[in-house]
């Protein structure tokens, strides 16, 4: 019997039993008692996709006697050579799914009309059953394939996440936020922050071509190489060149890595970067949004590549965005691309801290719609240099205290008292100290109530730093209830007294009113509220 498999493009395509391309596997079987026995009862015959026999059998009304068949067909010749005399098409729902092949009768007489009628009936009854068996086998195969792919995706995700930073750099006067959103078929996006000599920070954002485990493994290797090279050089161009030299010999075929490597001096705001074929970062300045241009070949393609460096200053109040192409290449339901112009427009809005990142994601989701299946990984890294408080000069900071408290209701008072004790020697005016205390207790209360959900086993971390100009308090929680809503309804005493708002809901309002600057940053697993209070009124 010759069995043909679905779907159609596979029917006449590559066979499942190691046939040659363009052919399907064929086996011929002989019915005991009716056909001449041979040494091998099963004979494999390959039928090419273009062989006219297939079209002939598709429309044949019953058994086909090969001896009388006038077709210029390689398959017919091979079937004859294999001793086949009669071919009975197996057709289910109008589709040729196989053939029943018989040799000559043992009596050496021709097949009778009764024989042909019997074979036709047999083929008509067997074909649906064979089709069902084919479908069951195909579904089992597809289920196994799906499971294999899902397992591969789980492994890829695991690898990917192992190499993403667990925490963001804690830089005074800077708000840094990062987002990594894997597509279902995990790509090879990555980002990294690397401590470098002189208090500088190396920032890498990259994208490996391909998806799944191969991309995740290349991403892991690239991550390690960049880290190693960043410990040997402070030049982004050199770091990329050395990384490229190491990656070229071991890069799998048809794969490469785009990567942007930047070195930030947080004190001066100076940033130097080199680019290996990655998206250019946007910087929002007082004059508008600009791209920091630097070009170079992706990593892993060609040896001996040099990478030009470019540099700029991120002034107080300015922001920078590094991103992968998953954002700009996202499509809406009408298949329009999100695109660079839209991103540049969104970048032009002056946001504080993580708000830029949140807003970019909001606009992306509004653009793609709720049924969007994310095509590629999306990575966003935002940096914002604080304005107002810092002015043009960023001062070195001194850590006054760092502690954690259980995330238990009432511990906001403990946080407040410890912060007050830590700043006791700074000589803050009493009114400013009280304002700081209220802001700290409210931020700690939010962290406990929402970030830790009141669980004593989930700690809230607190640090207090000072510069000559300001006190900076950071309160970090585990964001168990998600990020602090930036669009919370503003409290209105009239509405509350009229029963239109709940009596509560004053926390964020008080924090913003008490300190000179409040920023919220999140990395997906934790959230930090940074409170900055100028030490002297009018300073």
């Amino acid at each position, binding site marked *: 019997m010759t069995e043909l498999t679905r779907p159609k493009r596979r029917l006449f395509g590559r066979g499942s039993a190691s046939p040659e391309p363009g052919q399907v596997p064929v086996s011929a079987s002989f019915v005991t008692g009716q056909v001449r026995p041979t040494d091998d009862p099963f004979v494999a015959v390959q039928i090419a996709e273009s062989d006219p026999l297939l079209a002939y059998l598709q429309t044949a009304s019953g058994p086909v006697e090969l001896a009388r068949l006038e077709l210029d067909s390689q398959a017919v010749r091979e079937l004859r050579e294999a001793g086949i005399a009669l071919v009975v098409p197996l057709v289910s729902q109008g589709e040729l799914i196989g053939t029943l092949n018989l040799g000559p009768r043992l009596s050496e007489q021709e097949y009778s009309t009764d024989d042909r009628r019997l074979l036709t009936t047999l083929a008509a009854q067997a074909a649906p059953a064979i089709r069902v068996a084919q479908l069951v086998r195909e579904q089992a195969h597809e289920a196994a394939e799906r499971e294999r792919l899902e397992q591969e995706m789980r492994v890829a995700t695991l690898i990917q996440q192992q190499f993403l930073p667990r925490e963001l750099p804690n830089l005074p006067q800077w708000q840094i936020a990062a987002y990594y959103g894997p597509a279902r078929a995990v790509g090879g996006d990555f980002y990294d922050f690397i401590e470098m000599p002189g208090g500088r920070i190396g920032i890498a954002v990259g994208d490996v071509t391909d998806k799944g485990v191969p991309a995740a493994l290349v991403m892991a290797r690239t991550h390690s190489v960049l880290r190693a090279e960043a410990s040997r050089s402070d030049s982004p161009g050199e770091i990329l060149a050395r990384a490229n030299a190491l990656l070229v010999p071991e890069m799998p075929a048809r794969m490469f890595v785009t990567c942007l490597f930047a070195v930030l001096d947080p004190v001066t705001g100076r940033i130097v970067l080199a680019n290996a074929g990655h998206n250019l970062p946007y910087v929002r300045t007082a004059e508008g949004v600009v791209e920091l241009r630097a070009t170079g070949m992706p990593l892993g393609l060609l040896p001996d590549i040099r990478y030009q460096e470019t540099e700029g200053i991120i002034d107080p109040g300015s922001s920078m965005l590094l991103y992968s192409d998953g954002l700009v290449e996202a499509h809406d339901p009408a298949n329009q691309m999100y695109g660079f112009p839209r991103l540049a427009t969104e970048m032009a809005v002056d946001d504080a801290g993580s708000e830029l990142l949140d807003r970019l994601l909001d606009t992306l989701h509004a653009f793609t719609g709720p049924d969007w299946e994310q095509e590629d990984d999306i990575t966003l890294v935002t940096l914002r240099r604080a304005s107002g408080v810092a002015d043009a000069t960023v001062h070195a900071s001194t850590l006054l205290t760092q502690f954690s408290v259980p995330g238990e209701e009432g511990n906001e*008072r403990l946080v407040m008292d410890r912060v007050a004790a830590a700043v006791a020697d700074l000589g803050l005016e009493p*009114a400013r100290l009280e304002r700081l205390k209220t802001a700290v207790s409210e931020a700690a209360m939010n962290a406990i109530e929402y970030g830790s959900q009141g669980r004593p086993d989930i700690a809230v971390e607190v640090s207090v730093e000072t510069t000559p100009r300001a006190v900076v308090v950071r309160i970090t929680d585990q964001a168990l209830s998600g990020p602090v809503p930036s669009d919370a309804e503003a409290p209105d005493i009239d509405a509350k007294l009229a029963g239109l708002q709940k*009596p*509560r809901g004053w926390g964020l309002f008080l924090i913003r009113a008490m300190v000179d600057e409040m920023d919220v940053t999140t990395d997906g697993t934790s959230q930090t509220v940074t409170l900055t209070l100028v030490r002297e009124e009018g300073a």
Partner: protein
Amino acid sequence: MDPTEFSAAVTGTADAARIHCTGDLNVRADGAMETAYAEAAALGAHQITLEFEDVGYINSTGIALIVRLLTSARADDRTVRAVGLTDHYRHLFDITRLSDYMEILTDAPVGVPTGAAATTGGEGA
């Protein structure tokens, strides 16, 4: 006794009542504040004065308790005053606009009878 533990002592007459608050005015003061208002209301007082000189800490949930008391008082046609607030908390009452709905006194009120009628403790008291 824990100095942060909240309690509220109610004194007064049918004309005016005082609720003398002690400790931290936060979420744990919820029951005590509610009971104190009920006691002041039971006196039939037309005016209630909240005394804050012995309160060292008020947070946003404490402000919510005052909002709730104020809502009840307005529904019952009673006026509410506050006395003994530090400059900082007076500032909080201003920016939240609580001071639009309650008189903020800088000195102890005259003519309000003294003498403890009842003391209601906070949670765990």
